[in-house]
């Protein structure tokens, strides 16, 4: 058995969530390789080779791979598939974009967003916004898998000493072109790996009021998230959305402010260790999952909370 893991990286840095995919792969057993595909990947390759447990880093460094276009990356991965029993990626927007395209090229059914590994062929994954957990087994020659990062501990970033092997065969399929990105810049920790997350919902009333949450986030070293309603209303950008169809987070502490607790929102945060809800409606469903509920008007409670934190 051997496993190829697609390395998630951004702006020349290895994304920490790659380490969670590596730890998932290590539960399957067998030799683990990482594919670093991109343009000018030097730093990422170095970081990937240091991850504990990785035997080999495959490096596909080519202009056509600069922006992770699935039309270019999937055929390259297909050409590398010989000999692998599993091909895995994180369930990030990069993994979700490319892996199903790879699976179809290989004529295999993908297993999306796994949260538990029973054995090399059997995996658990949430369905219906996490209201049910499905265990599926696959007899496909190659198991194409995406991994939910929050469900697996991170592998050690140091201690490995993998061999590095360039791979050829990258080319531009000529179907798509990257134009530009509008990335949210923030000095706060990244949402999916932050130890504390404070999210606002429709109850925040407008985007300017998110400044109240940001002040608290800065005191606690937290990331700021949001419900779909807050994103749809334009209070905050799309990448803040936590939920079934947004990001999945599982921090030590999740604070939901002015969020009702629809199942689609709960799907993205109910595996947090401690949940706090601040809502003026004492019947809001968010209180059913909250360890600590505070029934209050957020416009009183949030400034008071900031003061209390000192």
């Amino acid at each position, binding site marked *: 058995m051997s496993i190829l893991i697609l390395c998630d990286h951004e702006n020349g840095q290895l994304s920490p969530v790659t380490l969670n995919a590596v730890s998932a792969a290590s539960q399957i057993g067998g030799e683990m390789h990482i594919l670093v595909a991109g343009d000018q990947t030097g730093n990422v390759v170095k970081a990937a080779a240091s991850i504990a447990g990785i035997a080999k880093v495959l490096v596909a460094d080519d202009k056509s791979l600069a922006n992770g276009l699935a039309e270019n990356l999937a055929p390259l991965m297909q050409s590398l598939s010989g000999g692998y029993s599993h091909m895995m990626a994180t369930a990030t927007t990069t993994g979700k974009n490319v892996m*199903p395209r790879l699976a179809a090229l290989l004529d295999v059914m*993908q297993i999306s*967003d796994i949260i538990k590994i029973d054995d090399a062929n059997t995996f658990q994954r949430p369905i219906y916004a996490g209201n049910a957990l499905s265990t599926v087994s696959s007899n496909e020659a190659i198991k194409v898998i995406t991994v939910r990062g929050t469900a697996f501990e991170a592998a050690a970033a140091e201690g490995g000493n993998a061999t590095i092997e360039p791979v050829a065969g990258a080319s531009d399929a000529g179907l798509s072109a990257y134009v530009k990105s509008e990335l949210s810049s923030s000095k706060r920790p990244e949402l999916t790996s932050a130890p504390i997350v404070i999210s606002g919902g429709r109850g925040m009333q407008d985007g300017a009021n998110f400044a109240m949450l940001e002040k608290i986030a800065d005191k*606690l070293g937290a990331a700021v998230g949001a419900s779909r309603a807050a994103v749809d209303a334009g209070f905050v950008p799309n990448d803040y959305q936590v939920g079934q169809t947004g990001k999945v987070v599982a921090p030590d502490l999740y604070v939901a402010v002015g969020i009702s607790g629809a199942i689609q929102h709960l799907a993205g945060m*109910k595996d947090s260790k401690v949940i*706090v809800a601040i809502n003026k409606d004492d019947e809001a469903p968010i209180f059913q999952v909250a360890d*600590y509920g505070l029934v209050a008007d957020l416009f009183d409670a949030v400034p008071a909370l900031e003061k209390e934190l000192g």
Partner: protein
Amino acid sequence: MKVLVPVKRVIDYNVKVRVKADQSGVELANVKMAMNPFDEIAVEQALRLREAGTADEVIAVSIGPAQNQETIRTALAMGADRGIHIEAPHDIEPLAVAKLLKAVVAQENPGIVLVGKQAIDDDCNQTGQMLAALLGWAQGTFASALEIAGDKAKVIREVDGGLEHIEINMPAIVTVDLRLNEPRYASLPNIMKAKKKPLDSLTAGDLGVDIAPRLTIVKVEEPAARAAGIKVGDVQELVSKLKNEAKVI
């Protein structure tokens, strides 16, 4: 240009699903069903393309049991021109769906296929990307904006870091995200009119596609419930609990 829109019939997003006692799946009997919400967004976008003169026909296709014809009727009531129903089991997998859609594309030659980013029942997020692979077409996934000009489409994608702009060749597969548009409601007269719109019915066999499942469902379980929490009286109590009891700050 024709636009093809695959529409899936799923449990309504407001329903709290129940796992069956024998762990074989979730309870579907007597449960309110609806069009997958992302597919409503896809239908809406197709109609807007037709209204803008970019497209001239909108075809809704649904794969599943006979009841899926209701979902197609919903798309027709929103304004789609005609429907195609492909008879298949309810729990058909994305790879098989993609193969059936490829066969429909071969018959209909659409200029674009607008697919939901994710079905809210299986939460797979695969079908559009798979269809793009099988056709060798470009894919614009998780689209929050779409602009078609000649043989190119500009797509703005919702990605983890924010937004990404790409340009893709047509014909293309675009998978739609929540912010692309707000779908219209079907008016009563349009619901009546939809009953007379053409709806063809086919089988997987007619299309020569093998739809046998590749994955075996071992069991479907309820997730562990969270232990009940407490209500705190004020912010002071909250902070004290977080510091001294939960020890998270």
